[in-house]
């Protein structure tokens, strides 16, 4: 990562630490908008991290954005920063205008996208993210196998707001021959599957960030909490749970970092290219598997405290439980990864060496 990226990340970290404590997160779920956090994020320009400088953005690398997303998740940031980053990136990639100082909704959940016919958009997106409070709704649409990006004013479409397991906004949007306010030309090298893979990595990065926080919370708790006359962390049974938590969290970090590096080196990040499937699927599989293992151990180590609404652990467990399902859980991506390697082998028809499993997974 470049030095300027690190500066932006450090600034973001301070901002999140100042403006987003555990209470802010809980209050946001009880419908108290975190105004100061919103304001601070808009003023910092973080929502434009992936927008090129020429389009008025920060011009940050893919790595910067993914790191921001990971960091935001480690604060359980109760704002649609990740969704807005992706939506703005799509706007910029497709040549549409991007607005500063507002949230953008991502009307894409990894399933079928609405279709475009004679300038009108029709279809249903079951779980658009970041829609309440957004000033623009960004929708990838398909016309004759070609992806374009459309935008809508929230008032112009029919939305039903739901909440994910974590209390994050997920909205059902029905497009019924809706006329977009902006419609891009076909976007070069963008496929629906490529978008899905990209968004799966976003969720994997969020899980990585949240798992880091769960690790910190749990290590902190077992150091402080005394039972039977000594800190919980002195008990070997607890130490081994901690080691498991640290391991799964670190492995998730390694998995998302390798995926971000591969994606960064790829000329067309939304192409859904077969080269990208392995690293991206790896990230989502490892992160989603870790989500279950880490939360189980963390809750066990926390006792009843971790189960209470007031204590912050639950904000992170509920998040990773919902993120692991979104854009494909581990089962989905494992199947695809296994199939991709199998077809790589069959098409080569050779034994160890080129076309072997090792050759494919070690790339």
């Amino acid at each position, binding site marked *: 990562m470049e030095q300027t990226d690190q500066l932006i990340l450090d600034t973001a970290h301070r901002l999140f630490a100042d403006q987003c404590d555990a209470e802010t997160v809980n209050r946001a779920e009880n419908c108290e908008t975190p105004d100061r956090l919103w304001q601070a994020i808009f003023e910092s320009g973080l929502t434009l991290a992936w927008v090129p400088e020429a389009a008025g953005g920060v011009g940050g690398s893919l790595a910067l954005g993914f790191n921001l997303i990971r960091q935001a998740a480690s604060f359980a940031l109760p704002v649609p920063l990740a969704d807005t980053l992706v939506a703005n990136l799509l706007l910029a990639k497709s040549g549409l205008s991007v607005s500063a100082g507002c949230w953008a909704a991502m009307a894409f959940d990894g399933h079928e996208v609405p279709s475009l016919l004679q300038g009108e958009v029709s279809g249903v997106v079951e779980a658009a993210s970041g829609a309440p409070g957004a000033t623009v709704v960004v929708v990838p649409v398909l016309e004759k196998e070609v992806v374009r990006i459309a935008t809508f004013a929230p008032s112009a479409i029919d939305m039903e707001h739901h909440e994910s397991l974590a209390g994050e906004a997920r909205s059902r949007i029905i497009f019924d021959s809706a006329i977009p306010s902006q419609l891009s030309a076909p976007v070069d090298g963008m496929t629906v599957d490529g978008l899905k893979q990209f968004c799966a990595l976003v969720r994997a990065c969020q899980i990585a960030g949240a798992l880091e926080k769960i690790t910190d919370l749990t290590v902190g708790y077992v150091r402080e909490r005394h039972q039977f006359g000594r800190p919980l962390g002195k008990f070997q049974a607890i*130490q081994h749970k901690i080691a498991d938590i640290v391991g799964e969290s670190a492995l998730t970090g390694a998995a998302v970092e390798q995926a971000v590096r591969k994606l960064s080196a790829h000329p067309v990040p939304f192409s859904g290219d077969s080269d990208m499937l392995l690293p991206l699927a790896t990230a989502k599989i490892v992160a989603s598997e870790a989500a279950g293992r880490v939360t189980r151990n963390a809750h066990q180590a926390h006792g009843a405290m971790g189960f209470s609404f007031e204590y912050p652990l639950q904000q992170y467990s509920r998040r990773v439980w919902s993120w692991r399902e979104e854009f494909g859980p581990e089962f989905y991506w*494992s199947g695809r*990864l296994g199939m991709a390697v199998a077809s790589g082998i069959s098409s080569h028809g050779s034994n160890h060496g080129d076309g072997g499993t090792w050759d494919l997974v070690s790339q």
Partner: protein
Amino acid sequence: MESVRFSFPAPEIDESVDELRKEVRAFLKEEVRSGGFIPVTDCWCAGVDPDFSRKLGQKGWIGVTWPRQYGGRDLSALHRYAITEELLVAGAPVHAHWIADRQSGPLILAKGTEDMKRNILPQIAAGKCFIALGLSEPESGSDLASVRTRAARVEGGWEITGTKLWSSGARHCQYMTVLARTGERDPDKRHAGLTQFLVPLDSPGVTVRGIRDMSGVEHFNETHFESAFVPDDAVLGAVGEGWKQVTSELALERSGPERFLSTFIVLEKAMQHSAAGMNGHQAAVFGSILARIRALRAMSLGVAALLDQGHSPEIEAALVKDLGTRLEQDIIERLREFWPIQMKQGYGDEFQSLMSDSLLRQPSFTLRGGTNEVLRGIIARGVGLN
């Protein structure tokens, strides 16, 4: 609150590493084709073939990171990493030289006398000299500080008395690095008074006896030292520094690819068998394993990169070993769903044999080089629990 954060950077891999990898891969493919070796599971512990080790020595693929003057090639740790990965995934019989290449050679290079470096390192690099580890004892397994083997000062050297247990491959080795007590036991300073020696296994007073393991292989050994004399210059490193030397040696060997690829050969064969007609459920099982291997590899390479940058990623290395060795076991457990394991090795086809052999060898994965429980203690202490 302190934060526990790890980063696993990508090492800088230049073209020469990729070229070397291709060369090794092509060589191994040809060896398998021509019957030079039959792939084995857990090959770095169960595949003993001194002739094959010599062949690798002739290729210049042992001790590659050591200086040329000592028989090495001055190559990077990543060159060695690529060679070892390719040997492991091919199931090549590399046990004879593995420990000397990975552990004892670097120890001699760092702590040995000039004579040791000149005489022994080139022999190791040639695939002709093998070294065993003399750490565990009948009363001393994971708790290494409790070793009882004693080295007493005598004129011109030391006399070693005691028993070393579980030394892999010792019967094929010319030397053993022996951890012995040279100072009095002090319950308050358990780690003091230990010294490492490089002992020729043909010394008078040394007897090596093979121990059959549950997989049927006699790769373990019990080595007796009966007042075995070694000269002063057999001391490896400094007198009294044995504990420090051994623990840093063990820390170094925790994160290599042999900690997650020991059963890869079985997975490779299983994929080859099922690739053509793979169903969705099988694909999901394979995919989940492959993802974890990819992630562990990123982690292990990250540790290599951190070492290269001059860091001491001790927790990260322990994590690779804890997660990786359990994965090696899980691979066999999960493949059982498609290939039940019932018969002893040698019955059924080659693949069934590999599965049986893996199952019988897997208990050792999470024990050797320090049990996973010890590793988890290291990890927990590393994040601030004492």
